[in-house]
């Protein structure tokens, strides 16, 4: 479980808080999606939860950040990273470079934390099966496509088996099929009790898989609710967050006076079919 209470943060040697008043909770087994314009502080928030700020990168952090009720900044980094797995945005930088095969690359974190060899072999092959990258295991991590590299990067974090996962745009390099698979895996992990905080702009996937969506703007969580409520909110555009194509189409129809302004906007294909069918029937 992740709990942030009134969190504010300023970088070292700056006098402005980039995050200011973040309240956010991710319960055990929950997926919370965070959306927001680029440059709004998503990466910074991810590093705060993972225990890198302020212990590694410095700066001023106010408020409380707890993972499973333990203040994360009170933990030495080695213990913090055992609690929180962090998938960073650029898979090219997630690959350690220390290893010459994908298999060993995935095992890198397990080696560092002293996992016995037999267990490593099982865990690596399990996670490779999960992400369908078994055919890549003997390749060089640097000889992979962007999408393949991203799957390896995700595998290398999931294999650590942390109770909390923070993922910064984990599907940026993936095609729709790959993105869907990653979200299916996230759902499977949360069923097993993992808490997942995911920064993502593919709102249709969040609509399908997230329990809640939080909107990050002006350094604060300006709104959080169920995916449906957030994605049909009329203020979404003013926070520089895109809505689903279904919502956009329905809103255009509504604003043109074609549909009932009171009707709830759709967020999915089946919603959309219902919405336009009932609207037409209502006429």
């Amino acid at each position, binding site marked *: 479980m992740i709990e942030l*209470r*009134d969190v*504010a943060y*300023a*970088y*070292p*040697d*700056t*006098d*402005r*808080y*980039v995050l*200011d*008043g973040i309240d956010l909770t991710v319960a055990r087994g929950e997926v919370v999606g965070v959306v927001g314009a*680029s*440059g*709004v*502080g*998503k*990466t*910074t928030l991810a590093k705060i939860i993972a225990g890198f700020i*302020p*212990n590694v*990168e*410095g*700066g*001023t*952090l*106010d*408020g*409380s950040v707890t993972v499973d009720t333990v*203040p994360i*900044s009170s933990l030495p980094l080695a213990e913090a990273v055992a609690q929180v797995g962090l998938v960073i945005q650029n898979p090219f930088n997630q690959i350690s*470079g220390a290893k010459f095969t994908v298999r060993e690359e995935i095992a890198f974190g397990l080696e560092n934390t002293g996992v016995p060899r037999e267990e490593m072999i099982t865990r690596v092959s399990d996670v490779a099966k999960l992400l369908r990258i078994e055919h890549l295991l003997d390749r060089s991590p640097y000889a992979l496509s962007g999408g393949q590299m991203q799957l390896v990067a995700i595998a290398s974090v999931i294999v650590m088996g942390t109770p909390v996962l923070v993922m910064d745009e984990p599907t940026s390099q993936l095609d729709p099929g790959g993105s869907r698979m990653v979200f299916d895996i996230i759902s499977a992990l949360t069923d097993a009790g993992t808490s997942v905080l995911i920064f993502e702009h593919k709102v249709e996937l969040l609509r399908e898989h997230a329990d809640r969506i939080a909107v990050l703007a*002006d*350094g*604060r969580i300006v709104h959080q609710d169920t995916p449906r409520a957030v994605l049909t909110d009329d203020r979404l555009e003013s926070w520089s967050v895109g809505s689903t194509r279904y919502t956009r189409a329905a809103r255009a129809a509504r604003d043109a006076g074609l549909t009932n302004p009171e009707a709830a906007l759709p967020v999915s294909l089946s919603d959309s079919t219902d919405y336009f069918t009932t609207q037409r029937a209502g006429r």
Partner: protein
Amino acid sequence: MSTSHKPVEANKVRNRVFVAIGAVIIIATYLYLVLGQPSEFAEGDFGQASLIAIIGYLLGSVLIAVGTIHRLPTTTIALVPVAIAVNIVVGQISASIGLPIYLDSIGTILVGVLAGPAAGALTGALTNVIWGMTISPIALPFAVTAVVIGVLAGYAGRLGMFRRFYLAPIAGLITGIIAALVSSPIAAFIFGGATGGGNGAIVAAFRAVGNSLLASTTFQGLLSDPLDKVITFTIVVIILFALPSRFRSRFPFVREYNVFGKQSELAAPTRATRSGAASTDTTTSTVGDDSASADNGTTPRG
């Protein structure tokens, strides 16, 4: 299996001892080779000079690399491979476009200035190891020179030679002279003065007028190394001055020794757009902004 990290204090002492012994071995090797027994060398028989040059310099470099790597933080460790790649790639391009200077230590000097002498030494040593593994094994015996360059760049940063633009070339000049002195016994006693076509011709000229081999390689080094290091240090200072200061001040070494000079102090950050009143259990933790180096008005990353 790898060494356990549990006895941290014991390891710290051990690492310091490694670095100290390494430094002593390198200095002793140099002194022996230069002051040793010139009469013996004069007959063209080096005695043990080449053996001592190769063992002393290699052992010293290895001890310093092993002793320094443990105390470097992960940010620095992650910087070293990129710095080595810069050394090698720029060094090769310089050679391929026919520049008469090496330009193969830009990364080493950058790391030395930003992360300190220990990091500079490691970058230097491993540059020559990797150069040896990928291009030519001839680079290996010269690892000690690269170590010395990295260390000197670190101390130049610490002494404030990168606070003013015009001081850096002076640091480069001094580094180049010392680098020439350290590498000349390697060129003389291991390679017999034949480290490359152009260099060989210069050594031959000094030999023709009756100088000893060591004196000739020293003069040859003094003709090329100081110029190379003056240009390299100038390039490095130009790059560093062009970097936003928030990049530079991320390095603890830069903050601790004011490598780029003191800048105006900043007041504690103020929270302007607070949504609610601070709750009672709010804690404030401030880490790493104890330094005076500050930068007004930079936009923090997001």
